[in-house]
C-alpha cells in the first residue's frame, strides 16, 4: 500500500464558523472531545499505510503548525517521506497573503512539491472532514475500476453548506456534477479524491495555463464526460464542518453509540495528540449522563447530553445540558448552560445562565469570561 500519497487541504474558504475559526482554520477545530478535525484525514491516510502526506496550509495556520508538529503522533515523522507542511509562501514568488480561489490554485502554488511525490497515486482530502474511511479499500477499488478519478461520496441524509453533489450510473460512473443546489439531490461529495500523480500534475498544469482554479468546476464538471469519474459511496458517518450548526449537529451525533463505534472503530484508530491530564473525577454529588467526557475534568455538578474536552471543570450545582465545552472551560457554581459551544479556556461565572437553542447554538469565544 505504498503506492498512495496523501494531500490534505487546510485553508480558509468557508466562513460560517463564526468565533470558532477566529483563531484557527477549520481543519484545526476541536471535535469529539479530544480531536482536531485534521486528525481524521491524517489517521484515515495513515491507517491505509500511507507514509507521505503533504498538508497545504493557508490562513490562520499557527494552531495547525502547533498541532501537526513533526507528525510524530501519526508516525509521519520519517527520514524519507513523512509529513510535509506547505505554507503559502512556498508558492510563486510574490503570492503574499491572498487566499486561494480553489484547490487547483492551491495545488499550483505547491507545484514543485508535486514533483517530489514518490508514489504513483494521490489521495486528496479536506482537513475539515470528520470521517473514518477505509482508504485502503477505496484505493483498491480505484485501481480495479480503472477510473481516472475516484470521488468519495457520502450517503446520509445530511446536507452541507455549499456542497457538491453527484449522480452516477449503475457501474458507478459519475454522470452529473452539481453544486449551488437549493434542494440537494444525488450523492454528497466528501471532497476526497484518488487519482494518479501524473494525472494530477497534468490537470494542475492545464488548468493553471488557462487561469482555471476550481477543481469542481474546471476539472470535475467540465471534464465529466471526457474523464472516467468513479463514485465510491461511503454509507457511514461523514461530517463536513462548514457552519456552527453543522458543527453542533455533527458533534451531538457522537452521543449515538453506533456512530461512535463507526467513527472510532479500533480497526482504524483515530490518532490524536495526548494531553497531560490526570483522570477525570466525578464528585459524590456529580451527575454525568449521555455524555462524552475527556480526561482531566472535574464534575461536581450535572452534565447531560454534552461533550466535554480535557480539563473542563463543572462546579457544584452547575447544570450543563446539550453543550460542547472545549479544553479548560470552567463552569462555576450554580451556573446553567444549554446549547452552548464554549471555546478554549472560557469561564462561566457563578449563577449565570446561558441558553442557546438546538437550531442556534451559541458560541462563546476563546478565553472569554461570561
Amino acid at each position, binding site marked *: 500500500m505504498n503506492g498512495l500519497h496523501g494531500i490534505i487541504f487546510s485553508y480558509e474558504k468557508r466562513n460560517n464558523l463564526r468565533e470558532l475559526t477566529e483563531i484557527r482554520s477549520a481543519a484545526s477545530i476541536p471535535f469529539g472531545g*479530544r480531536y482536531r478535525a485534521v486528525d481524521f484525514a491524517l489517521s484515515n491516510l495513515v491507517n491505509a499505510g500511507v507514509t507521505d502526506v503533504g498538508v497545504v496550509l493557508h490562513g490562520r495556520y499557527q494552531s495547525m503548525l502547533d498541532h501537526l508538529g513533526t507528525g510524530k503522533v501519526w508516525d509521519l515523522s520519517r527520514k524519507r517521506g513523512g509529513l510535509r507542511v506547505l505554507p503559502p509562501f512556498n508558492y510563486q514568488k510574490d503570492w503574499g497573503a491572498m487566499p486561494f480561489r480553489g484547490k487547483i490554485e492551491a495545488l499550483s502554488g505547491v507545484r514543485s512539491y508535486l514533483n517530489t511525490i514518490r508514489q504513483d497515486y494521490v489521495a486528496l482530502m479536506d482537513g475539515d472532514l470528520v470521517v473514518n474511511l477505509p482508504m485502503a479499500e477505496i484505493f483498491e477499488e480505484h485501481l480495479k475500476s480503472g477510473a481516472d478519478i475516484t470521488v468519495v461520496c457520502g450517503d446520509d441524509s445530511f446536507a452541507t453548506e455549499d456542497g457538491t453533489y453527484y449522480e452516477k450510473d449503475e457501474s458507478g460512473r459519475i454522470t452529473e456534477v452539481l453544486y449551488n443546489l437549493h434542494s440537494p439531490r444525488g450523492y454528497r461529495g466528501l471532497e476526497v479524491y484518488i487519482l494518479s500523480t501524473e494525472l494530477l500534475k497534468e490537470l494542475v498544469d492545464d488548468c493553471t495555463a488557462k487561469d482555471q482554479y476550481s477543481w469542481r468546476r474546471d476539472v470535475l464538471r467540465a471534464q465529466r464526460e471526457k474523464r472516467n469519474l468513479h463514485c465510491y459511496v461511503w454509507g457511514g458517518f461523514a461530517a463536513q464542518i462548514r457552519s456552527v450548526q453543522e458543527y453542533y449537529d455533527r458533534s451531538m451525533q457522537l452521543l449515538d453509540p453506533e456512530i*461512535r463505534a463507526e467513527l472510532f472503530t479500533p480497526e482504524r484508530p483515530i490518532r490524536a495528540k*495526548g494531553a497531560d491530564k*490526570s*483522570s*477525570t*473525577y466525578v464528585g459524590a454529588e*456529580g451527575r*454525568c449522563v449521555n455524555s462524552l467526557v475527556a480526561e482531566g475534568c472535574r464534575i461536581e455538578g450535572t452534565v447531560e447530553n454534552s461533550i466535554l474536552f480535557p480539563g473542563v471543570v463543572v462546579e457544584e450545582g452547575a447544570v450543563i445540558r446539550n453543550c460542547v465545552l472545549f479544553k479548560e472551560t470552567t463552569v462555576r457554581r450554580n451556573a446553567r448552560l444549554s446549547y452552548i459551544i464554549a471555546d478554549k479556556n472560557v469561564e462561566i461565572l457563578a449563577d449565570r445562565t446561558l441558553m442557546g437553542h438546538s437550531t442556534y447554538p451559541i458560541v462563546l469565544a476563546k478565553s472569554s469570561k461570561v
Partner: protein
Amino acid sequence: MKKECVAMLLAGGQGSRLYVLTGEMAKPAVPFGGKYRIIDFPLSNCSNSGIDTVGVLTQYRPLELNSYIGSGQPWDLDGSTGGVHILPPYMDSKGGTWYKGTANAIYQNIGFVDYYEPDYVVILSGDHIYKMDYSKMVARHKESGAACTISVMEVPWEEAPRFGIMSVNEDDMITEFAEKPKAPKSNLASMGIYVFSWKTLRQYLTEDEADPTSENDFGKNVIPAMLENGEKMAAYRFAGYWKDVGTLESLWDANMDMLSPESGLDLHDESWPVYARSVNAPPTFLGTGSRVAHSAFNRGSILDGDVQNSVLASNVRVGKGARISYSVLLPGTVVEENAVVEYAILGEDCRIGVGCRVGGAPEDTAPSPWGLTVLAPHCRLPDGKQVRPGIMLDRNGEEVSK
C-alpha cells in the same frame, strides 16, 4: 558529558507482594490511578526537579517497562545528553551476574554513572507514589555538606516500628539508624530516597562489594557502614503525600486516596504534572442509565452501570445494571451487565461475566475474615460466577493464596 546530578531508579524487584498483578510485569509497570503506572511518579519527579539523566535498574520481566519508557519522551527525558536509560544486568569478559541487592545493582553500573561524572547521585525506588522536588533535597545535601542525605517523614509513633527510623540532632543530622525498631527513639521514617556524593558512594559500593558477608543492600549494609564510619549524614524532611505501594492493600489505598484531595494526593496540580505515556482512545462515554459518583476514569471507556468510589483505567466497559464500588479496574477490564464488583482490584483485560459477584464490603462479610478480591490480568469469569472477599485468582481463574 558532565551532569551535576544523576538519578538511579531501583526498579528491579519482582514485587512479589503484589502477587498476581506482577506475574507478567515488573512492579513499577503496574497501572495506577486510572492513567499512570507507578514509575510515572519518580520519573515525573526527576523531570520536574530538573534531573535529566536517569538510570532505571531492572532485571525482572522488563519488556513491558522497556516499551512503556521507550525514548523517555512523555517525561521530557529524551534530551540528547542524558535521558532515561534502562540498565539490565550484563555480561562482561568475566561473565555476568544478576543484581544481588540494591547496592550491587548500582555497583554493577558504576560505568554508567561515571560516564556523566556527577557530583551527586539520587537513589530512588520504583514503588512509591509521591510528588517531591529532588532539587530541594540536593540543595539540603549541598548545604549540610553531608556524604549522604536521606529523606524522612514523620509517621505516627505507633507505626514507627514498621519503618527504618532515623534519630537526628538539632541540625537534622542523622545520629542513629534503626531498621524496624521495637522501641523507636524517633518517629522519622526513611522514605528510601537517598542523595549521595558520588565519590563517597562509589568508594562504599566498592568496599561493600568486596565484603562477601554483605547483602549488598543500601538500608542493611551501605547506610549503616557510613554511619559507623562517622560520615556526615543529613535528614531531609518531607511533608507531603507519600505511599509505598508494595502491597495489594497499600496499592488499593493509594488509588482511593487519589479520589480525595484531602488525602494530599493531588494529581490535577499543573505546577507539578505527573506525566504518563497515554493510550490512544476516544473520550469516555457515560450512558443515559449510568451513575458515576466519587470516581475517576480515563479514556476509551463506556460506562452504562453504577460506579461508586472507584478508579477506572482506560478502555473499561461497565454494562447496564452492573455495580462497581470501592474497586480499582485496570486497563481494558470488562464488567458485563448486572455484575457486582466490590472492594476488588481487577487486572488488565479481565472480563467479569454477566451477573457475576466479585468481592464484598467488610461490613457484609463479618464475622468471616475480610480482604480485597484480586484478579490477575486476563482472568475471565464465566457468567454468574461468585468470587468471595479476600480471594485471589490467577489468569486461568484458579484460586491462589496471598
